[in-house]
């Protein structure tokens, strides 16, 4: 979350882009403006490592099927 002062900076950027879009890349209106976060996860290293590294996909799981025992 941005505090008031940071939010003001963000809004100023957005206004500048809106006022003179020709001075920016074509996609500038789509920019997601955020403040660089202070890294806090070091103290919670083990629990946060997965959150940080894991993209939301289904992980495929496979298992070995023994066809000789498939009817059991």
């Amino acid at each position, binding site marked *: 979350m941005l505090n008031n*002062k*940071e939010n003001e*900076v*963000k809004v100023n*950027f957005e206004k500048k882009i809106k006022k003179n*879009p*020709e*001075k*920016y*890349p*074509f*996609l500038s209106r*789509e*920019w*997601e*403006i*955020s*403040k*660089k976060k202070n*890294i806090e*996860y*070091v103290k919670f290293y083990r629990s946060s*490592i997965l959150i*940080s*590294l*894991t*993209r*939301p*996909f*289904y*992980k*495929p799981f496979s298992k070995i099927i023994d066809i000789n025992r498939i009817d059991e």
Partner: protein
Amino acid sequence: MENLIVQSDSFDMSTDSIISWLHYLKPDIEIVKLFDEHQIKDITLKLSNNDVMTISINGLNITESDHYWYRRGRYSFDNFLLDATSSEFEKKIAKDNLTTILDFVHNIQFKNGINKYSDNKVDKLKMLNYCRKHSIIIPDTLVTNSIEHVNDFLKKHKRIISKPIQYPIVEFYENQNTFYFATKTHLITKDIIVNFPQKFLPSFFQKYVDKLFEIRSFYLKGNFYSMAIFSQENEKTKIDFRDYDYERPNRIIPFNLPKKIEKKLKKLMEDLNINSGSLDIIYTPQNEFVFLEVNPVGQFQWLSYYCNYFMEREIAKNLSNVK
């Protein structure tokens, strides 16, 4: 005792994993860690026909025969006796000299190295141009500052996208804070064009390519570790899988690229002088592999995790010469 130099960010977790593997595989390896912005205060560089190149940075002796892994971070220079009283002329002379040395240091080719700082500078246009040379299929691409040309491009291809010409995230320092400006890939429609100024900063456009699935492939010195991502059936992820759907995540599977495609991509990486990187590829309903881009210093741990490739171990083995 062998030296391994690791240049990275203090908080990069893939660096932690690889260092753990290095300690496991080769307990006696000496790891020199250069993290974040490594400021050069003292430098001596020796080049000779009769010896290996040596460089001493702040008392640390580095030779081209050392093992080296570049992950993140960079070198920078101390002010070298410049201060508030220095003239613009003094600053310019210092900058010219130091830039040359910094470029050299950032480009050192180690005999057993993975990546280098200058890999960050490899740009999309160069990649796409090299693809043409190796007959790798790319989406039709347009870089222009004219809305008229964008309009013609849209008429021709019916559906087009725009994405950043270089970095997806730009950092800018303002009011004692660093701000991120991030952009994903966006579909460009007629409505957007109509309301846009005639001229703008040159920007990057491509024909939208329909896909059966996307492929993220990690390349390490001639080997590919690939994953197919089924992002097409999901409205949220169909333009860009990085627009993640946390409610209905995309399905993925480990995937082998055809050898013919791998051979071409290997040549591309050689031309770009990159020995490791993450490639984005589309597989189309017409059974074509369409190259999008390569990120030399992208994240690879999620690919390793989902596909059980144990790439951290592979990188560590490579750096420590363990078979």
